[in-house]
């Protein structure tokens, strides 16, 4: 008996020692950075989508744009175009392109030439020319460009030489350069597109992406990860890391756990309630910045009873925004009184006209002759910068509306299904939001609430108001900031009167990162960029 026990003890001890030895050896990790992202990208071409997840995964990693927007100075800075000028009448923009910009070289594509004006022409003609062989390849259309009427705005794009080209506009537009600097206006490879078309797989262009950005796409495994490698011939400042991995982790708590255990170095979109954990872990820090974004509750204004402004107003009066701010954002956001956030230059502080007033809400509903109202609220299943927890927001609204006798049914699906079903446009109302793509205030109005955007997915209120459109058009043609600011305030006034949507909050932009990650630069708008990130690699744990 005792022999048996002895042997058992010995075996256990040896096994334990083995485990300890294995665990304690020096842990060598390849140079690189893991970013815990919140979801699957829908495509690898930002032209086709507006979702922040896709922009994060593609725009600043794989691609470059003609011009970039410098968040610090608020100026448009050179990217693929080194110089540009506008003709006197403001209708033509001339661009000179950078030389020796190389496209990614992968197992699927071997570029034979550097980037030229042809690639720029291809990238934009695909969007504006409905006869273009690639135009119809996109099943989702080009939502951002459609929402700003890009195709109507441009009469033609002309190649002057390999490194020079000109955009001819139909009318003056103060936001044109800003729009070219957005995350959506990326430059694709015309040569790659031709090869794919000849091979009969044109749809691969948007899936197995080729660009000129700091990282090239290596592998994407749905629900698991996206792997990028450094682009050795990148035209800009060379990335400091060899590999970039997006670890797709949809649960916010799991992202936090991975950050703590060191499986990822930067983690997206922490929930407000998790921020207290950061204080307990000295090697984790929070990076935050007031964001150019807005969370809102949009009514489907083409559907009864939401086509009645009194109903919309009643619902707006019935919800307690301060409570939502406390419970969902835990005071990491500011209350929204209009669409423009305080970080925008066109913002002006207005007193909130839509105060929390259930009595008034009831009276308005009575006036509209509505009884026993029951509505659906669609709540996003994923965390976004502007709303870290839409489901909770929906629940709070549900209880607020119960006070005025309105029943609420909350609807949610997994993100890809959610956005697909949302595009069928038979919802009552939806809790969603918008993150600006550039600092131009037009970016908050035209893509979201103009008549031209009413057919795209962006205009969640399905709202079309000629008065608002007139103001917005005027605001785009004038160039004086003071005048534009005045016009955007007018637009805000129209919206406050008509209430196609209730703005809830402007959230701070936050990422969590480990202390050994240096030089992240979080911008108030647009997607995350890892090109300049530094990482003191060493012990992984």
């Amino acid at each position, binding site marked *: *008996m005792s*022999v*048996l*026990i002895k*042997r*058992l003890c010995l075996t256990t001890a040896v096994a334990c020692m083995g485990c300890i030895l*294995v*665990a304690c*050896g020096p*842990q*060598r*990790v*390849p140079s*690189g*950075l*893991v970013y815990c992202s919140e979801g699957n990208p829908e495509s690898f071409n930002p032209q086709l989508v507006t979702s922040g997840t896709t922009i994060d995964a593609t725009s600043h990693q794989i691609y470059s744009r003609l011009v970039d927007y410098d968040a610090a100075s608020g100026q448009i800075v050179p990217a693929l175009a080194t110089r540009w000028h506008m003709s006197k009448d403001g209708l033509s923009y001339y661009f000179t392109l950078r030389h020796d910009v190389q496209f990614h070289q992968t197992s699927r594509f071997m570029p034979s030439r550097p980037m030229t004006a042809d690639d720029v022409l291809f990238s934009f003609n695909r969007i504006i020319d409905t006869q273009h062989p690639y135009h119809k390849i996109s*099943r989702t259309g080009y939502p951002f460009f459609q929402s700003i009427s890009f195709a109507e705005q441009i009469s033609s794009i002309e190649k002057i030489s390999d490194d020079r080209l000109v955009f001819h506009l139909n009318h003056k537009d103060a936001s044109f350069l800003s729009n070219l600097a957005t995350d959506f206006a990326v430059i694709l490879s015309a040569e790659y597109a031709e090869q794919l078309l000849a091979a009969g797989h044109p749809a691969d262009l948007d899936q197995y992406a080729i660009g000129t950005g700091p990282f090239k796409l290596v592998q994407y*495994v*749905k*629900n*698991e*990860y996206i*792997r990028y490698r450094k682009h050795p011939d990148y035209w800009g400042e060379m990335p400091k890391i060899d*590999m970039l*991995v997006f*670890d797709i*982790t949809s*649960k916010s708590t*799991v992202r936090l*756990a*991975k950050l*703590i*255990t*060191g*499986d990822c170095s930067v983690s997206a979109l922490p929930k407000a309630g998790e921020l207290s954990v950061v204080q307990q872990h000295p090697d984790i820090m929070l990076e935050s910045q007031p964001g150019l974004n807005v969370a809102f509750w949009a009514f489907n204004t083409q559907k009864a009873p939401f086509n009645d402004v009194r109903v919309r107003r009643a619902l707006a009066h019935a919800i307690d925004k301060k409570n939502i701010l406390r419970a969902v954002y835990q005071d990491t956001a500011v209350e929204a009184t209009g669409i423009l956030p305080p970080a925008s230059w066109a913002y002006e502080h207005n007193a909130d006209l839509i105060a929390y007033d259930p009595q008034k809400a009831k009276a308005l509903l009575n006036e509209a002759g509505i009884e026993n109202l029951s509505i659906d609220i669609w709540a996003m299943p994923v965390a976004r910068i502007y709303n870290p927890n839409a489901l909770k927001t929906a629940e709070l609204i549900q209880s607020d509306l119960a006070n005025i006798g309105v029943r609420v049914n909350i609807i949610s*699906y*997994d993100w*890809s*299904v959610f956005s697909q079903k949302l595009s069928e446009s038979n919802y009552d109302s939806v809790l969603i939001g918008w993150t600006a793509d550039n600092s131009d205030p037009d970016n908050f109005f035209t893509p979201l609430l103009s008549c031209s955007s009413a057919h795209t997915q962006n205009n969640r209120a399905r709202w079309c108001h000629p008065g608002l459109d007139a103001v917005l058009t005027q605001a785009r043609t004038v160039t004086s900031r003071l005048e534009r600011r005045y016009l955007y305030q007018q637009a805000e006034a129209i919206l406050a009167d008509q209430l196609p949507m209730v703005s809830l909050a402007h959230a701070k932009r936050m990422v969590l990162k480990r202390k050994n990650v240096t030089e992240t630069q979080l911008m108030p708008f647009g997607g995350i960029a890892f090109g300049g990130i530094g990482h003191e690699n060493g012990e*992984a*744990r």
Partner: protein
Amino acid sequence: MARYLLRRLNLFLATALLMLGILFYATSLFPVEHSYALSGVRVPSLQQQAQIIEDYQLEQGELAQFIAYVQQRLGGNLGLSLTSQQPVANELASVLPASFELAIVAGLIALVLGIPLGVLASQSQHKLTQHCIMAITLTGYSIPVFWLGLLLSLWFGVRLGWLPISGQINLLYEIRPVSGFMLIDTLLSDSQYRWSAFKDVLLHLLLPAITLAVLPFTVVVRITRSAMMNVMNQTFIRAAEARGLKTSKIIVRHALPNALIPVLKHLGLMLGPFASYAIIVEMIFAWPGVGSWLISGIYQRDYTVIQGGILAVSLLIIFLNILIEVLHTVSNPLSRKELYAAN
């Protein structure tokens, strides 16, 4: 014996057919068009539509449709995933090995630790030791796995920071799948970081495997103990003792082989709960296996993935169940005798 095997095979086929029938019926209940739920092609061209109708015999009667369905599914055509538009069979093949890896390691932990502990519990003369072991196993048996998983990850991952608590490997290691088993693939890879990657995989595997192993471990301990106590009272053991054999020899050579037979039988019974526990564990530890794949398919209303996942998991359980039963019969002299008598 041959007749017995044939009967087991028959049982396997009948059960599998029944399950396919239920799946076939359930497919027609999905709230989407029937051909879409079957094939998963989002926007079929006319040619594809014709092919789908041809494949699944959609214009024929129910029986012909069912036969076509079984042919397609068993022929490896599980349709396209609705969300990713990739063949479900490929996705399944990429997630199955991870689940197997987890299940095998968990099973090994349960057996390697459980059997000796069970033997120890049966041999101990101390009432206290016996009670302790029984109390611990009963606790382990009753702890819900989702709670245990969260507790372990909170303690070892978040508080102490010793072990990673989600995923299969630090994604900076680029491992090309060869066998699909990460432990093997890391060693096969020609990267200079091979050993570090192997360690990393091992560390990632530890917590999920332990969590999953708790249930079978407790069962193995308890069954081994009661079976051992049973066997040790038999006359042939006393005869061996009388011949002066060492206790350890008696246990290892004479008692244990007999005691393991009921353990084997219970392992078969445990497969169902083990599989559902595995799904929960995969969800908790974000393990990229069949379980989390199936659950995300359910969230995404991905009907072809749901069908494919259920088909694979249930076929596997049916098969393993019958396999264990056959093994049980082969290894058990008593039931072998019954078989011969029946013959």
